């Protein structure tokens, strides 16, 4: 694509606001369809699955915040308010598509089939945690669900997603990469590096940026001064769309179209979902110190779950009776999973040193031997000492 070929004899600066992207929306606040909007292709099975997963995540988030307050978890982080942005987007993709997310997209993992027990195993760092107890709560990952393990570092997954998608294209797979991040992460260098790499290498990756108004306490007005994130995609030669993130139909249709576009043209696409982080950044945060109750209330009235529910009921696809029984079922299931999985033991101590390398090198084995002798000397001082006492000599060894 050439640029700079059109000449002009006049001085005219293009203003930052000149490129203003409208927000795609289908569903009105009262759950009806906007008259001029495209028709939604969402069928009943998909719609009820999406709805149930949004409800599930809302309940999970509420229960886990409570569990953290009770001291049963060290940390938690909700995606409350952004369920439609996440479930609506993942629903537009296929199971073979890789998801590379930030850390507020547990709803996508649920959509792919992550179970209550699997959530608990990770949150509680027990012996069944797929991540072997190595990362703080909410750093999920699942190979079988094509959900790349999360890292706390912001935006690092963006250039990686470009590379992953390039690999998918090279292998001729009917698959692309779905990459999530937030409005704050889009200020990181890796955002710019990743979008540029994706565009230049023609990689089929769909970026979904969740613009939720805040990066911890910093509002978007102090994060960037342009028209949000989507126009930046255009600067990199990437197709861009902005969507009402609380409108499940708009998010879904934009995502279905984005996937099709990315694979057909072998080129990246960016979707900016406009929403609001209804909860705190994490259990270590208190939003009352940086935003008003009135502002939160305004967004509570735009709740994406309530909005979808009205639409479903209007279509005759959902009822209050179903709602009640679903709520009860999920609450019981989550509570039961928490109770059973918190009784499970710690991962074995050799998980401390395994997987640093494919084969544990000699110097690390030597360090581990020293550690075992030490833990054996003071078993009561270390959590892994229990296993030591239980098994007599040395704590359970597996991988090495």
């Amino acid at each position: 694509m050439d640029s700079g070929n059109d000449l002009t004899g006049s001085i005219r600066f293009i203003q930052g606001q000149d490129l203003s992207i409208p927000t795609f929306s289908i569903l009105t606040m009262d759950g009806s369809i906007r008259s001029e909007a495209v028709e939604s292709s969402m069928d009943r099975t998909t719609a009820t699955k999406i709805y149930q997963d949004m409800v599930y995540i809302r309940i999970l988030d509420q229960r886990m915040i409570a569990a953290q307050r009770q001291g049963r978890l060290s940390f938690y982080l909700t995606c409350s308010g952004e369920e439609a942005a996440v479930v609506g987007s993942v629903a537009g993709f296929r199971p073979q598509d890789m998801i590379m997310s930030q850390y507020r997209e547990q709803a996508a993992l649920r959509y792919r089939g992550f179970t209550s027990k699997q959530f608990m195993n990770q949150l509680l760092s027990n012996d069944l945690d797929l991540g072997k107890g190595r990362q703080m709560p909410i750093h999920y990952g699942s190979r079988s669900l094509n959900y790349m393990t999360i890292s706390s570092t912001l935006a690092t997954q963006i250039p990686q997603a470009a590379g992953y998608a390039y690999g998918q294209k090279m292998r001729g797979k009917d698959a692309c990469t779905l990459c999530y991040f937030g409005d704050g992460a889009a200020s990181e260098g890796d955002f710019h590096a990743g979008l540029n790499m994706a565009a230049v290498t023609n990689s089929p990756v769909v970026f979904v940026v969740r613009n939720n108004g805040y990066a911890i306490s910093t509002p978007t007005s102090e994060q960037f001064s342009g028209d949000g994130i989507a126009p930046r995609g255009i600067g990199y030669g990437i197709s861009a769309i902005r969507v009402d993130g609380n409108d499940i139909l708009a998010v879904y249709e934009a995502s279905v179209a984005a996937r099709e576009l990315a694979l057909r043209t072998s080129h990246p696409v960016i979707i900016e979902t406009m929403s609001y982080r209804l909860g705190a950044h994490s259990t270590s945060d208190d939003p009352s110190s940086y935003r008003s109750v009135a502002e939160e209330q305004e967004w509570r009235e735009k709740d994406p779950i309530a909005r979808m529910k009205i639409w479903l009921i209007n279509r005759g696809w959902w009822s209050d009776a179903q709602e009640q029984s679903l709520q009860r079922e999920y609450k019981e299931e989550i509570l039961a999973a928490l109770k059973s999985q918190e009784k499970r033991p710690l991962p074995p101590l050799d998980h401390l040193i395994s997987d640093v390398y494919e084969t544990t090198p000699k110097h690390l084995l030597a360090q581990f031997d020293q550690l075992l002798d030490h833990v054996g000397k003071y078993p009561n001082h270390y959590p892994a000492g229990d296993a030591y006492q239980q098994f007599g000599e040395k704590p359970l060894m597996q991988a090495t």
Partner: protein
Amino acid sequence: MQMNLLQAVNSALDIAMDSDDRVTCLGEDVGHFGGVFRATSKLQEKYGKQRCFNTPITEQGIVGFAIGLAAQGSIPVAEIQFADYIFPAFDQIVNEAAKFRYRSGDQYNCGGLTIRAPYGGGISGGLYHSQSPEAYFCHTPGLKVVIPSTAADAKGLLLSAIRDPDPVIFFEPKAIYRAEIGLVSDEDYEIPLGVADVVTQGEHITLVGWGAQMRELHRAAEMAKQDNISCEVIDLRSLLPWDLDTVASSVEKTGRLIVSHEAPLTGGFAGEIAAAIQERCFLSLESPILRVTGLDTPFPLVFEKEYLPDYLKIYEAIKKSVYF
């Protein structure tokens, strides 16, 4: 056949790409141009633009992209044009590549990744075309760090690095890219990572180094020979993991050790070797372990010769150690 170190690197890349179509070379100017040093010369011509291509000038983008590519199942060889410019990618290397397997509980890995970067001084490159940043990476579990000093080693070690199941940083001594010439087999061969090479057997003192510094060590050993001092010269080749056993058994025999690198003294990798050897060989040591290194300054321009730990400085250190 006779090859210089750069041709050996090119030969390794050629063989790696020929023997496995998952091997992909990327970086600034590595495509048609073949890289600013020509390490990737003719590879795009031979294997196509999909497998050998230019990237935008974004080191964090190159490494991040390569990590994703490796996670998907490819075997990327990413070039950072000069080791001095690796720092924008530091987060991707240290926080991402190094921890990819560990943090996922071995569900995912980017073990196919190799990062190549020319490093080191001696080319009047000043602050930003001369650095030896190996110690930063040796401080990061999950990475492997390799530095060849000969053409034959460069080829065998690079083939091992590319095929290794863990991410490898491969620093190439650019000052001797063309000066270092030797017999290199046309065949596909590998030299195992983590194994040092005892290049010269000796009795009185052990000299340890890597990369371009090996030439200085050999020259200093030759000088010391005139004084009837017999030096055992060891090329470490891999810094992470490094071959403690080989160095320790040498020091148990000679009782003396000098470690030399171009990088600054404080926090340099010689410190790690010295600490490990004094712990392991305390009773065998006849004199303090000495480090002959660059100064604790940014890499200079006009005083490059004074800054570098050359053979004369090593020779003086040998005498200091032997006549302690």
